[in-house]
């Protein structure tokens, strides 16, 4: 069974004549736009795939890096460099002070060392003298004691003489002048005896000094010990100071080395130089293409129609981390310094080293 053909909806039938033409125009424009868009998408996808594949296999690309003195790494570097220099200066001043201190201590030590044998010689000399004179004095002391004993016996008789003088005076045998003269003689004798006793005691003391170790000797020995101790202390102080100087010297060497190394980094060049310095990050995968003097190429659309824009000037040894310019993954590598004839190339996403990435 066949049913009659459908009728077109009334709205369509009554549509003005101009509407189909308008629709046709719109559809034509749409189709042109759609075709262009689809080809653009297709081209975009193919180009995208090619770029992805290209950067997956290419081993000569490097990513230019513009180091600003104000960026974090440069600021951090500057801060560390200033700190290192300040530390170096402080350690150098300390070392100089220690050098001067050691010199002073060594002079003092030399003086003490010179004093010590003289003291020792004096002690020995004195000891020898005492050894020689001590027995003699002892003999004399004994003799003095015997003399004094004799004198003492004589002095006992002086009482009788004095009594006799008084008796003679009273009896008028002698004048008062004579009596006074005689009494003065007696007093003088008594004084002599007293002096003699004193001399005996002093002599006994001298014998004691010469024949035993007295406090005076001990004082001298104490002085000698102090002298030795002071020398030992100076030795220790000098030794400590010398060790400190050694450590300071090593630290100074390390700091100088660190500063020298720092001066070889791109960050130093970026913060210290007056001229603009161009750097590029090279991933480890691409390091075979890097050597001083290698040509640097910059390309249109990142990879085609390339031209030489400079050379590799310097390769920095330190490891750097960066983000892959295309894949956005973290990668490891190092920085190089470029000598660019065309400074705009420093702003390119990538440059190529040693050779053009494609044949043109």
């Amino acid at each position: 069974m066949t049913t009659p053909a459908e009728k077109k909806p009334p709205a369509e039938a009554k549509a003005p004549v101009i509407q189909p033409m308008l629709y046709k125009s719109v559809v034509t424009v749409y189709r042109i736009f759609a075709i262009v868009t689809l080809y653009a998408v297709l081209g975009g996808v193919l180009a995208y795939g090619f770029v992805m594949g290209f950067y997956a296999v290419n081993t000569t690309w490097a990513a230019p890096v513009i180091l600003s003195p104000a960026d974090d790494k440069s600021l951090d570097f500057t801060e560390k460099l200033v700190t290192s220099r300040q530390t170096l200066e402080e350690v150098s001043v300390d070392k100089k002070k220690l050098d001067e201190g050691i010199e002073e201590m060594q002079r003092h030590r030399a003086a003490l060392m010179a004093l010590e044998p003289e003291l020792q010689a004096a002690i020995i000399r004195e000891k020898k003298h005492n050894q020689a004179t001590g027995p003699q004095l002892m003999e004399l002391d004994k003799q003095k004691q015997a003399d004094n004993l004799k004198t003492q016996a004589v002095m006992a008789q002086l009482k009788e003489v004095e009594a006799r003088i008084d008796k003679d005076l009273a009896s008028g045998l002698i004048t008062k002048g004579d009596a006074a003269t005689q009494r003065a003689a007696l007093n003088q004798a008594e004084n002599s005896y007293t002096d003699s006793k004193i001399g005996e005691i002093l002599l006994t003391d001298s014998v004691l000094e010469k024949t035993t170790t007295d406090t005076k000797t001990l004082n001298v020995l104490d002085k000698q010990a102090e002298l030795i101790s002071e020398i030992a202390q100076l030795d220790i102080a000098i030794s400590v100071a010398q060790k400190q100087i050694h450590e300071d010297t090593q630290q100074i060497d390390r700091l100088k080395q660190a500063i020298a190394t720092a001066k070889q980094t791109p960050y130093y060049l970026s913060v210290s130089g007056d001229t603009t310095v161009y750097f590029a990050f090279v991933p480890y995968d691409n390091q075979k293409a890097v050597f001083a003097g290698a040509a640097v190429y910059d390309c249109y659309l990142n990879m085609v129609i390339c031209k030489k824009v400079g050379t590799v000037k310097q390769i920095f040894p330190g490891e750097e981390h960066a983000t892959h310019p295309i894949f956005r993954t973290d990668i490891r590598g190092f920085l190089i310094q470029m000598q660019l004839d065309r400074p705009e190339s420093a702003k390119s996403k990538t440059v190529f080293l040693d050779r053009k990435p494609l044949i043109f």
Partner: protein
Amino acid sequence: MAPVLVWLILFLCLLISIVKYTFALILKWSFPGVTVKKDYSYQPMVSVLMPCFNEGKTVYETIESISKSNYPPEKFEVIAQDDCSVDDSFECMLKAQHDFSNIRVTVGRNTVNSGKARSVCNALKLSTAELVISIDSDCIFHPDAIRELAACFSEPKIGSVGGRVGVRNPNESTITAIQTFIYYAAFQVYKVPENWTRSVGCISGCLFAIRRELLLEIEPKIRSRHWFGIPVNQGEDRFLTHQTLLRGYGTYINNDALCWTTVPSTLPNLFKQQLRWRRSIVRDLFYTLRTLPQHVWTLHPNTVLTLVLTPLGALLGLLVVITMMTGNPMAMAGPAPLLLYLGVAAVLGLVIRKYSAKEAVNNPLAFGAYLAWSVVSSLFITTLALCTLDSKDWGTRMKEQEAADDDASGEETAS
């Protein structure tokens, strides 16, 4: 700035999706009002309209499955409409008509290839039933499907009801396994909030029930549907659903009304199907935006949100992928997205195995490949859909025959 804006919108879409899915699960488990009150005693006369184009022997199986329906045979009929298939589809229809004499099968044929939407309209002309069920000719239907769909129409404000579409070939390939997950999640979770407000944004054309008077009201719009004078033959299911909502009726998915479809198992077929669907989504978005004030005043806010956000998400996916590929091409290569997809797959795999063993996927981890597909889908399908809005083919069913002339009137025959 632009990428930030794209990511911001994507984040908002994701947030809305998460909220919506979470809300769906809470609704599903906690509120009986989400499901419509079904009245199985309500058994109106039903016409099952089956447009067909180059389906071959599958059409026979489809009619066979309908013939086994638990619905009074005198109360339903099958109207099979062939759209000038170049294979033996029409012969298979006639054979089914002959073999399944327990039901009334009418076979019709367009004189020129007219597209699915017009084939449905042509089939409708042969129907007199109160309720019309439009089906795909490559599906197998559960015996209770018609009964379940009809029962939902006891609620007077319901205009259209859809069934759940399951996958017949879940383990045929990785592609079919992925689609099994997507289909299951879409019906069991994503549609639940829409069911709650009786405002499902798109009822699948595989199993689409609609009141006859409503379809007759919409039919002229279907026939006159065009894009700058070019007839639009695709996306009639989304269009019908949308029109139902705009006429103040409710739309609903009854997950107990089951049918099984053979999903594309090869990338080219999947691509064509998705392209057809994406065109339909884009057209629907343009239509919604063109008549947005009408939508805002007429429809439930949830419906407007669904009608705008779903297609917007597809367009946004394109921008997100472009941003990702130009900004961070390796972002998708990390383990996090893959682990997320595999986690979702593991959960869905277990749920499907427990609640729908027929669709159980042997290798749920195949869902990980959806990650790659989502990039392809977002990047190419949306772009291609936007650039081929003048297309009028049948998508996966195109074989040797090219679509007929745009001005074809869609004549038909019937036997």
